[in-house]
């Protein structure tokens, strides 16, 4: 029983990271209908920023985290401006956008491999070791902070999207880009802001990832990104609470598979879930069914 509880809490902690990253996929998909394959690699870029800041430059931790968040947001905007903007303006077929995203993803992975080598780098401790006992289960500080950070970010994001003017504009563009431009909303700007917010959340995810796993590689983003995308689809792509729920479910499912079945098959379970979701509820748990207009 305690073991089960421990696995679930562990899953919630991993799931929090997934949820933060899944939000980036979900928001970008909501606004430009693009599966941003490069999003997973944005996490990798952010993680390497943490490495550079903490190990090579020796900057204090809080400066490092703040700088990482800001710079990752800038990277997100840069990727959007350099790779996607032209295509979005031209209104090219979706497949071209998707291929570009894969290109950006492969590019970032291989760039960092050339720069830092393909072997794993270890990251210094971010959250001090230690744990609290709850009902006989020991919960590490890392887990508590990870879950707390996710909850805080989620509340801030909800406030931003629902209560601010900019959030309203963002929702308008994702609802109907044409009508939104007629109301005087600059679509290009909103897309850039979406990428920035998504990347910022990914940066928080990256910091928590570094704290949890303490190791990074240039290819860490691909599998992580894939899982988070699955989480976003599971929750209903385009929906913010959906991404959160999806991420948490993924984390718990994975943790339980690792704990009770086999660690090698955890990835297979992830895609099994994806296929089941797509068969029975393609719009996801909290998504809306959209029908094609002719």
């Amino acid at each position, binding site marked *: 029983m305690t073991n089960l509880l421990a696995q679930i809490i562990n899953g919630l902690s991993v799931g929090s990271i997934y949820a933060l990253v899944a939000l980036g996929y979900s928001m970008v998909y909501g606004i430009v209908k693009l*599966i941003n394959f490069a999003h997973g690699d944005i996490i990798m870029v952010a993680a390497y920023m943490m490495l550079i800041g903490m190990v090579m430059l020796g900057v204090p931790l809080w400066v490092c985290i703040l700088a990482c968040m800001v710079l990752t947001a800038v990277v997100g905007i840069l990727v959007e401006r350099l*790779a996607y903007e*032209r*295509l979005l303006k031209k209104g*090219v*077929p*979706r*497949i*071209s*956008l*998707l*291929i*570009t995203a*894969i*290109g*950006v*993803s*492969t*590019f970032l*992975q*291989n*760039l960092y491999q*050339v720069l830092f080598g393909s072997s794993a780098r270890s990251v210094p401790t971010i959250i001090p070791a230690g744990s609290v006992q709850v009902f006989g289960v020991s919960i590490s500080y890392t887990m508590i902070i990870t879950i707390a950070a996710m909850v805080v970010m989620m509340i801030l994001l909800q406030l931003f999207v629902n209560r601010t003017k900019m959030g309203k504009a963002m929702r308008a563009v994702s609802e109907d880009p044409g009508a939104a431009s007629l109301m005087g909303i600059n679509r290009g700007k909103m897309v850039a802001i979406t990428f920035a917010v998504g990347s910022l959340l990914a940066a928080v995810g990256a910091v928590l990832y570094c704290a949890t796993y303490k190791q990074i590689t240039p290819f860490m983003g*691909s*599998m992580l990104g*894939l899982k988070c*995308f*699955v989480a976003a*689809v599971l929750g209903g792509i385009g929906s913010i609470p959906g991404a959160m729920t999806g991420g948490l479910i993924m984390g718990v499912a994975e943790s339980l598979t690792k704990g009770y079945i086999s660690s*090698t*098959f955890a*990835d*297979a379970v*992830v*895609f099994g879930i*994806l*296929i089941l979701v*797509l*068969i029975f509820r*393609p719009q996801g748990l909290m998504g809306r069914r959209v029908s*094609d207009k*002719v």
Partner: protein
Amino acid sequence: MNKKKKLLSYALNFALVLVLFLVVNVLMAAGIINRYYGGLIMQVCISVVLAVSLNLVTGLLGQLVLGHAGFMSLGAYAAALFTIHSGMATSGAGGVLTIIVATLVGGLVAAFFSFLIGVPALRLKGDYLAIITLGFGEIIRVVMLNLEITGGARGLAGIPVLTNVNTSMIVAALTIFIIWAYMLSRHGRAVLAVREDEIAAEASGINTFRTKIVAFVIAAFFAGVAGSLYAHQIGVLSPTKFDFNYSIEILVMVVLGGMGSITGSTIAAVILTLLPELLRSVADYRMLAYALILILMMLFRPGGLLGRSELSIAGLGRFLRRKLFGRKAAAAGVPMTAGEELEVEAQTVQEPAIDAILTAEVKEKDKPEAQPENAGEGKED
């Protein structure tokens, strides 16, 4: 008339393939093509099979597949295990029969699995096929790494080497022929119609789901065939070969050659297989370069080098005529399509993009890529 032209074109292409075949064999007999070059030719042929088959789904059908290497891996392991365990002859004429059967087995296994994942994925609109095939490719790799029968991480060794230059060339030519013929059939036109507008295609009475699944299964079949050739060429299989990067490499061939151009994919496959051999010194930067090619291509030339046009003897003839007699003669019979410039290297022929199935008749009338054209245009001179 049209049928006659089509037959003539097939005959001409067959003759050309035959000539190529003979030339390679003569060169091999003369010792100019040694083992190294022979190996290269086999690799090129395998790449051609992969690129052309992926083009059927990604270029012509317009559905992104990111797990082509996964299907190749399935075919490779299935074929290799068949050859090892079936006890069929592995030399002489028996060896030829063995590789034919093994290759079919590899292709069919890949096709079967593609059907299994295609059914849920293709029912949905949008990009789900990309993500599901990507996931599937990864699952296959993990499973191959953990199974007992595939040798796990050590890989599968001791596969009889049965692929030779001739087998691989024949398979490559057959693949191109079958996919080409498929695209000229009414099923092929349905494929194009689905790419251009799925809703319009459905409204015109095309069973879009069936069209998509058949094209997807055919592509996976040929990926399996390529896997079988590869397994019997190298003799050793390891799951790491068939990773996501390999799927991307095949995709780059399709994108670079021109999404929707069979000849384009063929040419790109040849170039991109030979290029790394020439550039061994900068091998570390290869994937980086591939990624840049993908991005820049999409930004500045989304159609790829050839776009949707095909290279053909007829087009070459038209190009020469244009050079010799001016533009008027050449322009006749080449339908231009909206939004597509003809700045493609001039010896290519513009294939009319089909906006809906309704225009299929037009295409039938002046399908340029399948005609040797000499008669039709000579009159207008």
